[in-house]
């Protein structure tokens, strides 16, 4: 392999990683934008998605069916969490809601260790994408291309949803002025619930499709959470565009850093974040949708 081909491989890996982060960051950003709540249990639902996936792929024998069922279960769990924990707290300080999501994260972390043990669990690729493909002499596992593709698709879908649909305009309005939305007669509780569940479902989805690459283990939840928070801080809270660019920036920096500056690999994304904050404390993109 030539240097260029190696670089291309690294870039593709970085992009795949970045788009995985984007799916997570998009969910986190959506929830924040609507509810002013930073969901500290975001990584936990990633974990749940991953663990469910490992089990269901085995049990159901069909990767795609397992994907649908896992995301569905995560959504139901999210709905239960929303109804039992967050909904009674909507008239309280946002901080209380953030604290609750943190408590939830602690519980899920320990529960996952209880149920699934502490060893790493892995999932196979779907049969369709288990091969490597060669593009211009660059060998890459086709699954990573799929992750990139799915990420792009999702970015487009979210853009269309928020910019071109009625639901989207309500959500956008809710982000800028919550009182107005409820004054216009929309059921704000239902919208909150819907957005929260969608955000968590995205996290679960990311957990499922990320597991063939990263594996899943108790403890990964907080690692993922921190990474996602960094992406969102760099991109700008509540900005979907910001989440997209920051995900790719962090994903590529992480991978290229590992490849070319291995001894600084773990520091490098924090440094990127620190620099961005120095220059633009509010993140690369301000709070605003697409």
């Amino acid at each position, binding site marked *: 392999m030539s240097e260029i081909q190696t670089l291309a491989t690294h870039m593709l890996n970085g992009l795949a990683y970045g788009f995985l982060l984007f799916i997570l960051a998009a969910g986190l950003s959506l929830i924040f934008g609507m509810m002013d709540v930073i969901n500290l249990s975001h990584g936990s639902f990633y974990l749940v998605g991953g663990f469910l996936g490992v089990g269901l792929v085995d049990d159901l024998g069909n990767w795609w069916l397992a994907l649908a069922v896992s995301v569905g279960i995560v959504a139901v769990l999210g709905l239960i969490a929303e109804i039992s924990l967050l909904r009674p707290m909507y008239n309280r300080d946002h901080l209380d809601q953030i604290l609750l999501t943190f408590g939830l994260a602690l519980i899920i972390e320990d529960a996952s260790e209880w149920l699934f043990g502490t060893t790493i669990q892995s999932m196979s690729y779907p049969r369709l994408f288990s091969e490597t493909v060669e593009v211009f002499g660059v060998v890459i596992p086709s699954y990573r291309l799929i992750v990139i593709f799915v990420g792009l698709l999702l970015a487009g879908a979210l853009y269309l949803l928020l910019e071109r649909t009625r639901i989207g305009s309500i959500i956008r309005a809710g982000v800028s002025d919550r009182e107005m939305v409820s004054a216009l007669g929309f059921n704000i509780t239902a919208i909150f619930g819907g957005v929260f569940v969608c955000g968590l479902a995205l996290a679960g989805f990311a957990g499922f499709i990320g597991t063939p690459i990263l594996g899943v283990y108790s403890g990964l939840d907080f690692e993922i959470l921190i990474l996602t928070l960094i992406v969102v801080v760099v991109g700008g809270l509540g900005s979907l565009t910001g989440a997209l660019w920051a995900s790719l920036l962090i994903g590529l920096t992480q991978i290229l850093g*590992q490849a070319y500056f291995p*001894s600084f690999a773990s520091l490098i994304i924090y440094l990127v974040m620190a620099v961005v904050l120095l220059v633009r404390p509010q993140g690369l993109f301000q709070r605003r949708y697409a």
Partner: protein
Amino acid sequence: MGKGDILVPGTANGASTLRRFPFAVAMILLVAFLLLVGCGGGGGGGGQGGGEDPIRIGVILPYSGVYAQLGQDITDGMNLYFEEQGMEIAGRSVELIQEDTEANPQVGVEAARTLIERDEVEIITGTVSSAVAYGVIDLISQDQIPFVISNATGNDVTRRGIPYVFRTSASSWQVSYPMGGWLVDNGVQNVYVSAPDYAAGQEQAGGFKEGLAAAGGNLVDEAYPPLGNSDYSTYLTNISQASPQAEWSFYAGTDAVSFVRQYAEAGLKESVPLYGSGYMVEADTIEGQGDAAVGIRTGLFYASGLDNPENTAFIENFQSQFDRDPSTYAVQGYDAAWLIGEALKATEGDTDPDALVEAMEGVEFQSPRGPLSLDENHNPIQNIYIREAREQNGRIENVVIDTIENVQDPGA
């Protein structure tokens, strides 16, 4: 006056402060209550010394978190030995008091302190992580309590030559150095090295590189991903691009599973054979690695397929007792218990630290791993086996393909 009043303590505005004095009294009562609870809760464990008292052995191992399985294996290995002795040595019963170290050195040191101070244990054993071991060594040196390390492989743990510290696993160097020479002897000259970027990773890789260089081999390049890394694609790309004759790695636990699987998935296993430190392909990782582990050759002081009478008996007893296969970690625990037990037999149940140390120094025995004796730093002198992971008996096992005898840590 609402509950919000407490938001501003010491508010110097009349009405509320006048009522605050009883509040302060309530607070004092609360402190007193907590004090009592604290003392009462802790009080159960401590007993006073006496002739017929059991021998109290403190076990500090991870029972939760990423290393929980290792902790359990070591504990079971220890239990196996003591149960073989009828839970009694030299007429005194043996009591194992376990404390969880998690994967956190602070918790580990606190666990050791609790055992020493609250439970007044006479011997301490355990620690999976070297960081915990280093922390505990400071503690036991002050209190002069023999410390038998059943896993932590940090080179300096024994190289410091602290009289109360013993080890029944190995030093990092001991595990990895012999393979450097072995590879060169078997025609592999150019090797790529990778290990996680933390103390154990550096030590293991360091030992291997030393062995490789001593035998005239050549280090192609090296890579140190962060500990707990989950995506190795970048490093694998770099290895593939460097096209060495072989790759030597040390990873443990979760990292080992990820690395070995991804190594196989990237199709590297065929072009660049994978060698490594034995901990990379062990009982705790093999199941997760699956077929990806097959063909990997690693060096360690034990292999489940080792053919000697002690091992056969050990495996049989362990299986009947715990209904599963023993791992290397179980052997380490078994041998730690053996060392403690034999020393206690020699002192006839006397737990005086200096007498115990002297007795342990003289212990020499046939372990399931083969012959084992201690060097002057209390680190084992033992065989290192080159093992190959093969599919047999319906599962993947490490099969011994070569033996390097009586490997001794070079010391400080």
